[in-house]
């Protein structure tokens, strides 16, 4: 099971890195006559490559399409033109290919969330473990700082931040900013949990043994206490990851979003937010399925790793 999960993750990483080659269309390319077009199912016709039936707009206001069984189109990797698009996962409300945006968005969203998660876990673990080990006023200060970060409405901070930044932000800047904001917002969760564990573990025999052998606090932290929290850290990571992917969309409401052609799963889902639209066009929820798959895979890998430790 784990091997499959690990392979899945690697596959996904490969896919997302190869997105520019694999994605049939540009992430920002909208086909004006195909808003909310449904997915086109590939069929095998004879011995050739799979083909799809093109769809035709039946009612623009109702966004209804009909499949034309008399004609066929090749899949986009095997030829095909841009005025007859092929949507394997349907199109969004701008007529953009969901599959392409999913692939491109993987790099943005998962990359961002992964980096932020690693950062938050690292900083949180160090801060929480140190607070738990030292106790006393260090513990108080660290925990109160964590509380303060938690209670401060991030939205306001981002709003003010956005107003002092230049208007046009390149995608890379947004990426870095959002990553840092997520790290800053995420570490208190990790720190609190780790501190609670460490506060109990610090009086256990192995720690005392290490101390009596002359280990300094740093060594005790890194070699004994933090590894003792590894299971908890892994769970925290799997909790933070989807939160960060989705959280990116919230930030875009206060102006810190990726500029338009850049696809991100959070924004794709936010655009699908109209429930009635989701009921009629369920393919717009594909990023949620992708998020689920990634988190599940990470969970699986993590739990078996834990079993071994």
């Amino acid at each position: 099971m784990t091997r499959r999960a690990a392979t899945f993750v690697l596959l996904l990483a490969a896919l997302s890195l190869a997105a520019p080659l694999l994605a049939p269309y540009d992430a920002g390319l909208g086909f004006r006559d195909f808003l909310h077009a449904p997915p086109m199912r590939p069929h095998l016709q004879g011995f050739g490559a799979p083909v799809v039936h093109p769809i035709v707009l039946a009612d623009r206001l109702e966004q209804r399409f009909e499949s034309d069984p008399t004609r066929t189109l090749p899949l986009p990797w095997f030829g095909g033109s841009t005025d007859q698009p092929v949507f394997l996962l349907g199109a969004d409300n701008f007529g953009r290919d969901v599959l392409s945006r999913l692939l491109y968005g993987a790099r943005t969203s998962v990359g961002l969330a992964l980096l932020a998660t690693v950062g938050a876990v690292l900083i949180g673990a160090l801060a929480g473990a140190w607070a738990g080990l030292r106790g006393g006023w260090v513990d108080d200060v660290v925990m109160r700082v964590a509380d303060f970060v938690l209670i401060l409405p991030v939205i306001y901070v981002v709003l003010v931040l956005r107003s002092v930044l230049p208007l046009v932000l390149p995608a890379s800047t947004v990426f870095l900013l959002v990553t840092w904001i997520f790290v800053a917002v995420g570490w208190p969760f990790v720190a609190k949990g780790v501190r609670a564990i460490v506060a109990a573990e610090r009086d256990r025999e192995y720690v005392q043994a290490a101390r009596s052998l002359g280990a300094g606090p740093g060594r005790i932290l890194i070699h004994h206490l933090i590894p003792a929290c590894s299971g908890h850290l892994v769970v925290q990571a799997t909790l933070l990851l989807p939160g960060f992917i989705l959280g990116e969309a919230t930030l875009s409401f206060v102006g810190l979003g990726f500029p338009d052609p850049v696809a991100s799963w959070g924004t794709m889902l936010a655009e699908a937010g109209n429930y009635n639209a989701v009921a009629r066009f369920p393919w717009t929820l594909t990023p949620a399925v992708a998020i689920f798959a990634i988190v599940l895979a990470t969970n699986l890998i993590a739990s078996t790793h834990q079993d071994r430790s």
Partner: protein
Amino acid sequence: MGWRWWSGQQQPADSGTEIVFSDVSTRGGVLTSSLRSEPRTFNRWVNRDFATDLISQLTQSKLVRVNRATQDVEPALAETWTVSPDNRTFTLTLREAAWSDGTPFTSADVLFSFQAIYDPKANSVLASSLLVGGRPLAVTAPDTRTVVITYPGAFGPGIAMLDNLTLAPKHKLEAALAAGTFPQAWGVATPLTELVSLGPFVLTRYEPGQRVIFDRNPRYWKKDAAGGALPYLDQLVLEVVPDQNAELVRLQSGQIDMLQQQVRPEDIATLRPLVDQGKLQLLELGVSTDPDLFFFNLRPAKWASDPRGSWMSRKEFRQAISHGVDREAFANTVFLGAGVPIWGPVTPGNQKWFSPNLTRYGFSLDKAKALLAGLGLANRDADEWLEDEQGTEARFTLLTYRGNSSLERGSAVLREYLRPLGIAVDVVAIEQGALIERMLKGDFDAIAFFFSSSNLDPAMSADFWLSSGSGHIWNIGQATPATAWEKQIDDLMHQMMASVDHAERKRLFDQVQNIFAENLPALYFVAPRMYISASARVGSISPTILRPQVLWAADTITVRTPASTGQGGR
């Protein structure tokens, strides 16, 4: 007279819009509508947001009313009036009427209303809409049923201007005005018995964050054609539903009878099955009169230091953009085809003032490219964008805000259309408050925006047209007009506002529109068609384009069964 036909039969408007009017006149029942934002105060004199205005419209009456559907002036609390030969003095005879607490309504209330509105300490938002040439109206009350109003100069809209006047009860608010606490009066914590009404309903319960409930006003002055008492409804409930999607769900499930405002084009398909089943009605109101606009910063100070100033401040640039956009395709993408191409701020929905013969810069890539070349823009390097003679790229920032889907989509479509022309547009969505600040400070290149107006007579939105106006968004509040064409518009508008002959006013305003269409300080592409939806149990509605589309005539609405529906029952 105008008002009688509201309760009887009526001829459909000739624009082809469907106005549903059933002959049901059952009395009683409860109507539940949604309300998307909460009232911040019940004081209409200091606040103009939608909820406050709606509550005011439901609970108050005016001296005269501009019928939202026909744009004609109807008598209301002023039963009759005479106009002096110079069109400046109006003598109104007031009807016998009383406030909901029994106190008689007299000319003293009218005097007091004006006094409060013009008092600088009261900070009234209504003041600017009751000025002529920047000067207040002179109001006297020779007796308890007569009011004489003298305008400082002739004013085109004439007595229709009094539709902006919300009457204030002297006996309730006089003390607050004297004490200087008028702006704080009638706040949301006020005991509801203080909020007396002259209109069809009385506010009887307010549950903050949840709902506002109105009961019929037994002392309402208006009667229907048969002399029966109005309103027909016993109770009207406004349910606070901040989320548009949740609002729609409530309508579908029958928990509310109608939506606060129009249905979005993308939601029509969701409601169609229910319409087919006969549970809902879907009505087309016509073309919206508040289209989205894309305007540029035309302040001279902005371009003086900007390297793009030599071409970006020129009208040829904006004309080229207009040539670059295929308005039909724009309507298809942004409004799902439910829109008409427009070329200026006045849309076909504004029948009295629309001019079909404006200069148009229609879809033509060749013309667009020619204009841009004429400005000295050419592709001088390897990328796809144009540069001017100094090498500055043809790139500008278009600001908009999240949450308004037609603006977001429109901005994206505009960017797409300008790309083949070689113009790069950076669409940046910032928070709404931040956007408005930048607009006021003049710190922007271009903005995609949306205004909502309450009156179709351009003289009432002088702030937009006049260069000195606070709503003259491309260059707000100029001391003297910065350009010759703005001066031309100023002169024409002043003439148009001072004339009382509609044909003459229209002629002048057509010229204004043409100057606007040629200089294009703001670009207009498509005006959406408006639809509203209501439960099938709602009858006798008189829907119009201007908001509130249905509740403006709440006194004649009926509901089929007086029984309770879900939460709204009694």
